[in-house]
Each structure stands twice: as C-alpha cells, then as structure tokens.
C-alpha cells in the first residue's frame, strides 16, 4: 500500500529526512515514533503530496506520489497535527464541504456524513458550530473529515497531541475501530503507550534517519536482549545481587529503589529457577515478576535524544 524508497528532504544544509525506507502492506498500522524535530511530519507531508522530496520516491498503491499527485490524493486521508478548522461553519457543513471537495456523489453525501458522525460519536453535534466544540471533539471532527471519502491510506500526524486524558482515550477507541475496518494507517505520536495497543508495526526515526522499523513483536525481542526480572526481598538484598550475578542465566543484577532488577538471559520459561535459587539460599522473597517491555522502553533504547 505504501512504499518509501530512499526518501530525502533537505532545507539548505539541514537534512530533515535522510534516505528513509519504509513499507506498509494493506491493513498495516504503523506507529511512527521519534523525538520532536526528528522528521516525522516532514515524511508524512511528503507522502501526502504536500512536500516535494529532494530525492527518493514514495509509492501509494503503486502510484508515484511526485509524478501523479492528483491520482494519489483520492487514496489518502491526511490529518495534520495542527487544527485546520473553519470555525464559522456547522459540523455537517464542514463535512459536506470536504465530501463535495472529494467528489462524494451528491445523493450519497448526507448518508455518508451521518455514518461518519456516528462513527466519530458526533451525531448529537451535527448542527453545532465547529467553534463550540471541545478540543477533543474538534480533533474527532478532523478525523471524520479525513475519513469522509473512504481513503485507503490514513496519515495521522499526532492525532492525540494536546488532548486531555479522556479525549485521548476517545481518539484511541476510534483508531481501534479503524483498525477493525481494515484501514492502512501511518500514525505519528509522542504518546507511545497509546500506539502500543493497536499498532502491528513501528518505525523509529531520529535526526531524519530511520533507526529501527518492523513488527512490534520482533523489534521488542530484538531490543529486549533478555527479560528483566523485578525482585523484592525482605532483607540481605546486596548478598542476593552478588549471588545472582554469579549465575550464568543472569546478567547485570542491581538494586534500585529497594528492588533488585536482573536481566534474565537463560532459557525462556525457566525464570522460576532463579526464584528457586534465591529460596534455596535462604532469601525471603516478597515479590518476583518479569517486567513487560513497552514502546517507551524501545524508544529510549534505540534513540539518543538528538534532533535533526
């Protein structure tokens, strides 16, 4: 559905995006992660035909974006990170404008608007002015506008930025609905736990360069390098750390905030042997668990905090 090949964008001497390669198949949902200024928005804008790449090619459904932007636009649904709302219009008028602008046939238009409003839970606000909506509702309206022409590929640039927790949860639920509908989505976000729930792929970008990309599971395994065990003892924690470090299946055990954190590099499923060893040595174990690795851990592990 989307193929990016050696995509580069330069502004004078500054390279915003550097030789980026990505691929999304139909139905994929890719979380596009990176610090501020990493080049996420620039990449999304190049895919959406708004920016011309300095070099490289973007294909959407096999069509070269630079060569045939007019052919690509009907396939894309772009949601920018900034609000692009006309405030003096009503919700249905706003959607009606974009439906007409995307050539949704006139007889179907009102039906489509009603369906989209129902999907985004804005039906009760159909006749309200856009300026009267809350920030979260405006963001949902922007997403409704993005979906109005039933695009194949959605490009969502920070859809949850600046929203309160409730509005973020609402957007997240909406995105889950889109996943069920089989949409292909490229979504950039800073709020990583939100992406973790519904992305099957991630791409991490830093200083315009792709650091890592692929399936969430395989990247987690790649980054993990072993499971992290969190252990709480009633006493003699230092002694236990020395004991754990002496084991072949454990690497780099240390105490932090009263807990022992040990990286388990032994056979998967045999972590209980560590617990057995601790008990055998007379340690009173209060708690023993394996820490889950999430997108934030991956992000922190693979990036250095630098910007382009």
């Amino acid at each position, binding site marked *: 559905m989307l193929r990016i090949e050696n995509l580069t964008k330069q502004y004078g001497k500054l390279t915003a995006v550097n030789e980026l390669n990505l691929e999304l198949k139909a139905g994929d949902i890719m979380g596009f992660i990176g610090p501020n200024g990493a080049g996420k928005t620039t990449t999304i804008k190049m895919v959406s*035909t708004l920016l011309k790449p300095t070099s490289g090619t973007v294909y959407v459904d096999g069509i070269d974006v630079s060569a045939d*932007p007019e052919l690509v636009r009907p396939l894309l649904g772009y949601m920018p990170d900034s609000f692009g709302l006309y*405030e*003096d219009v009503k919700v249905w008028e706003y959607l009606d404008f974009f439906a007409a602008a995307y050539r949704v046939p006139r007889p179907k238009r009102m039906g489509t608007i009603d369906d989209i409003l129902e999907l985004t839970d804005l039906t009760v606000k159909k006749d309200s002015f856009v300026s009267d909506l809350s920030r979260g509702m405006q963001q949902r309206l922007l997403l409704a506008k993005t979906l109005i022409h039933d695009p194949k590929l959605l490009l969502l640039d920070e859809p949850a930025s600046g929203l309160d927790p409730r509005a973020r949860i609402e957007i997240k639920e909406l995105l889950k609905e889109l996943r069920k509908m089989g949409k292909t989505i490229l979504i950039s976000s800073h709020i990583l736990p939100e992406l973790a729930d519904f992305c099957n792929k991630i791409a991490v970008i830093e200083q315009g360069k792709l650091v890592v990309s692929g399936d969430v599971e395989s990247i987690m395994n790649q980054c993990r390098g072993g499971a992290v065990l969190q252990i709480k003892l009633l006493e003699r924690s230092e002694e236990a750390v020395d004991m754990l470090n002496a084991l072949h299946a454990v690497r780099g055990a240390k105490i932090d905030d009263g807990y022992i954190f040990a990286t388990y590099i032994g056979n998967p499923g045999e972590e209980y042997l560590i617990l057995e060893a601790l008990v055998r040595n007379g340690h009173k174990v209060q708690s023993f668990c394996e820490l889950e690795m999430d997108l934030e851990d991956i992000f922190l592990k693979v990036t250095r905090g630098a910007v382009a």
Partner: protein
Amino acid sequence: MSIFTRVWSRMRAIDLPLLIQEMRIRQRGIRPFTVMALYVAVLSVIALITLYISGSTTNISQSSMSDLGRSIFTYLSIAQLAMISLIVPAYSASSVSAERERHAFELLALTLIPSASIVTQKLGAALLQAMLLLVASIPVISIVFFFGGVSPFEVILVYVVLLLSAVMYGTFGMLCSCCFGNTRSSTFAAYLGVMGFVVGLPIIGSILQSIFFTSRSRGDNSFFVTMTGGFAFGCAVIALVVYACIVSPIAKRVTERWKVRAFRMGIFGAVFAVVTLTLSNSLVTDAVVSTLYYQNIFLPLFVNPFMAVTTFLSSSSFYSRSASYYIASTIAFAITCGYFFRHLSIVKFHALRRSQ
C-alpha cells in the same frame, strides 16, 4: 427532455463547494451586515449633502433639476468607486492567506478541487460580496431618477465600470493573497497596488503626457515611438520570462491543461507586443497622436475608472467621442488586468500547493 430541463439539470450538477463554504463563512456574524449598512449610510449621507448644498443654490427649473440629478449621481458613483477600491481588496486579500493562518491550507490543497477552480471560487465569493454592496446601493442611486438628467443606460454603464473595477482590484488582492503568508501583508500589498492603479498610473501618465505633448508641439514623435517600442519589447520579454520561469516547469510536471495555459500566456504577451509594436510605427503613431491631440484626450484617463466615470458623467453628451474612449478603454483595461491577475494567482496557488 426539453432544452430547459437539460440546462437546469446540468446547472444543478455543478458543484461549487468552496464558493458555498466561503459565502457561508463571509455572511455569518454581524460584520457583513455592518459593512453593508455603513456602505448604504455613506451613500445616503453624500446624496443628502449634495442635495442640500446644490439644492439651496439652484432654481427649481427642469434643466437645473437635471443638473442636480447628474451631479448627485456623479458624486455617488465616485464614492462607490472609492469604497469598492477600499473594500474589495480587503475581501480578496485574505482568501488564501487566511487559510494558511488558520492552518486549513493543507487540507484545502489536498482536496480534488483543481487550483484554477479554487482560485475562481474564492474570487467569486469575494466578488459576490462586493456585488451585494452594489445591489444594496441601487435604492439610494435610484433617487437620481426623481431629478432626471441621467439615463438608465448611463447608470448601467457606470455599474459595469464599478463591477469590473471590483474584478480588477479583487483579482489583484487574490494575487497578493497567494504571494504573502499572512493576511496583514497581503492586504497591505493589495492596497499599495490599488493605490498604484488609482494614483500612481495617472501621475506617471501626466508626466508622460507633458513630455509627449511638448514633443508633439515641436512636431517630434520620437519619444512616443521609443516609448511604445520599449513597451512592446518589455511585453515580449515579460511574456517569455513568465512562460519560462513560472508556467513551463509546471506544464512539464503536471498536465495538458497547464500546457494550454502556458500557450495562452504566450499568446497574451505576443498580442500585447504586436499591438504596441504596431503603435510604435511612425504612421500609426502620427494618427494616434493626432486623435489624442484633437480630441483633447488626456492620456492617463485611459485606464483609470475614477477619471473615466468623472469625465463620462461631466461630458454633455454620452456620444462625446472622448468620453466613450475613456469608458471603453477603462473596461478593456479592467478585463485584461482581471484575466492576467487571475491567471497569475492560479499559477502561484498551484506552485504553493506543491511546496508547502
């Protein structure tokens, strides 16, 4: 199916979403009502003042009543022109820049509406708003028919000049809107341009006129020949540069439609060049100079709606040749400028659409 049914169904099929959206946004709130009320109020006050001053000094006879009607109409027409020159650039200068300010430009740029249609629909919305003002002024203007002295045809002609002036200033405002990133700068540039049209052109024209007629009195047309020749050369160069720098790279990348536009642009410059080169021919020059001289036509009036309307209404007969020249040339200039500015706006908008 009758022809009317077919035309009606075809008209119903026309989709102008941006025009409708713009009209919705522009007509909501208290602002459009306030502008219209002020517009009509200013015209009413001018009519009353003219009536009061002129009425107190003239006798009640049929001819003096006609003169009074004509002078009221002249003042009202000039006032309308002045207000149109002030209001229309402000309407159109925000068309594109406001989209960029409210971060809606990207969304608009990604729609399937062609660039030419976006510019035309936005321009249409601004001009429709100006037309509303002109329509609102009709009841005030119609008081001149109580006094006489102005024929309905003259009223229609002045309204045509008003409308075309609105088109000229509106398209220039649109061009500024496409060129500048914020509304404040584009409005300032649009007003500067309108000032150039209204004040700058007559000043330049007056300077040329004085030099030109001084030369003529000495029987020397060399200055005129050089001027028109230079203008022709300039037109040809500009047409070439515009074609090479703005239109042809787009034509290469985009579609056949842009190639057609580029071709039209070239034709436009070439026709201008041929016309001015013809004028620079000494025989033609002599004929033109003689006409100007003996008809006592003031050169800068050719393209200035203010002076054209004033001259037209102050001449004793509509069929006065010089008055007809003024009106015809003003209308032609406004149409040419409107076409040219709209075309440049489309080119600029299209380039903007691809290089956010």
